């Protein structure tokens, strides 16, 4: 691959909690490995490129979430990218709309069915620090982020939870996020990739077709210090 093309979908609709940060972090970490990056911001009135290497979709309010789902269903390119094994990272409202259905403005909407899950409303808004233990086969260690959502997500059999919740709510208080193939959904913003550099590297490795261990090491002193501060703050609070 000559240039890594990272598509950030619909920043006009879904970009609420520093979601641009995930794009910045991925581009920064790729360039630090000598990989050229072409960040592509695709507005909701533009076609979704089908040939990009990595797709990002962020969080947002109910109205824009429903509009985004409708346009992505019409466009079709994101579903084809998922079938082709392209990595996708979806946050919060973007995560919910990858499932079969989600709630927005008081009613159920059809999702993209890329991940086997569905979302509805929870009894209360989940707001605060979130942390969890991820499956060993992901090789990314514990995750830390900040969540702010009213939805709850129920996982089907064809997906794995991204993490078992140790603090916060996530999907339902027990699990957080989901993954299947190269598609990851999560409620973590913060943004998630700034606070979880190994998750960023996993997506990059999938995008360039290597094992994460083959990516050259970079200096993660500051992100590691941030991680220990956030985990430490949760431990102190408990």
């Amino acid at each position, binding site marked *: 691959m000559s240039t890594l093309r990272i598509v950030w979908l619909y920043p006009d*609709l879904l970009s609420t909690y520093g979601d641009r*940060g995930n794009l910045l*972090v991925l581009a920064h970490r790729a360039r630090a490995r000598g990989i050229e990056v072409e960040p592509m911001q695709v507005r909701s009135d533009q076609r979704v490129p089908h040939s990009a290497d990595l797709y990002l979709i962020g969080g947002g*309010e109910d109205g824009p979430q429903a509009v985004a789902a409708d346009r992505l269903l019409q466009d079709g390119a994101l579903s084809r990218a998922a079938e082709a094994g392209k990595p996708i990272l979806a946050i919060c409202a973007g995560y919910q709309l990858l499932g079969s259905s989600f709630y927005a403005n008081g009613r159920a909407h059809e999702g993209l069915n890329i991940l086997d899950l569905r979302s509805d409303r929870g009894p209360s808004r989940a*707001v605060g620090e979130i942390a969890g233990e991820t499956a060993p086969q992901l090789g990314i260690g514990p995750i830390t982020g900040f969540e*702010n959502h009213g939805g709850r997500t129920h996982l089907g059999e064809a997906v794995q939870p991204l993490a078992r919740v140790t603090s916060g709510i996530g999907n339902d208080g027990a699990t957080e996020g989901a993954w299947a193939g190269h598609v990851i959904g999560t409620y973590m*913003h*913060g943004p998630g990739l700034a606070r979880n550099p190994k998750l960023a590297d996993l997506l990059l490795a999938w995008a360039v077709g290597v094992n994460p261990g083959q990516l050259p090491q970079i200096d993660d002193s500051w992100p590691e210090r941030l991680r220990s501060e956030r985990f430490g703050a949760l431990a102190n609070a408990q």
Partner: protein
Amino acid sequence: MSANLTPRAKFATTLLRTAAALSRATGRGDGSVIGGRVGLIVEPRLLELLAEGRHVVLISGTNGKTTTTRFTTAALEAIGKVATNSFGANMPTGHTTALAKAPKAEYAALECDEHYLGQLLDAASPKVVALLNLSRDQLDRAMEVTALAAKWRQTLQEAAAQSTIVANADDPLIVWAASVCPRVVWVAAGQSWTADSAICPNCGSHLDRFGEFWRCTNCGLNRPSPQWSVAQQGEAVVGPDGRRYELNLQLPGRVNRANAATALAIASLFGVDPAQAAPRLSEVASVAGRYARVERDGRQLRLLLAKNPAGWLESFDMIDPVPPVVLSLNAREVDGFDTSWIYDVDFTSLSGRNVVVTGDRRTDLAVRLEVDNVRFQVVDDIRAAIAAVPPGPVEVVANYTAFQDIRAEFNRVN
């Protein structure tokens, strides 16, 4: 004004002043909040009773409300005494105290928290309501911004029929909220943060932007022609008749020239000649510590408060290009616990400068700056930051509680 107060309201006012004075004397702040709380317990209608008979302007929006309120107060003082909540206590308790402390003031300029606008419209029956801008702010504890604009729109429709609105024509959320009102004076006050208004608040379609003009591609919502604007050349405000009012502000940046334009628009609705009001604005040197200049060990610090992405972008636009920059970030309750918004701020303009970061969440800032390839030093507090830069001018940008911590280090400079 208070001559017509009921005995109960008079008693409430006396208790309010006593509580506020006690709070000040015991070093717990300026007493606005506790005083107002006491007064409102004794007489729940106290705010309404104290506002009765006065000419009131409410000033609200995400950013610039404290400064605009200060400018407006300076302008209105050309024609009379003005009651104002100059300490930034911008909820009903603070408004009640501001009015109670200035019983003889015929005018009132009240800064109003965005979430209390409806309550204040009911209680204070304002002659003028100024709406500055709406952008994302403390999302973990506040409403998302389009929902807030919708709430304003409904509130204004119900409660502001008697008021004249002074509104920012450059902010689509403000235009949508204000356009339900029969009398609106539009000010081209600019918009430094456009990401919360990429789509039409009215119908959800795309907004097209051509320079300063914007319009919805579907429903036709568009930028109204402003009566007031900031001059393109030089430092001046241009009024409805095309007349220029020269500004000689001590406060920096385009955003403060826009705040001045709004203040002149408000003042002229109260019958103040803008030519008389404009020079009064240049007497404002700092606002509750904001823009204050303090000196320590040969370093001249200028203190800038920036609470949210729009505020940080505005402050980067204001600062002088050469001096070192100290950034301080906290995430305590009033700041919002969520720091993710720092990724909505572009820090690349600081590249190549001497940047020092501090505050409770300095590590978050360090990670953020690394992503933007901005070099930085991390230090424990403002004292260490001062020691880390050479003598000379220093620009300090801090969010709310980080700013208060720095002010405390300098005897709560105003």
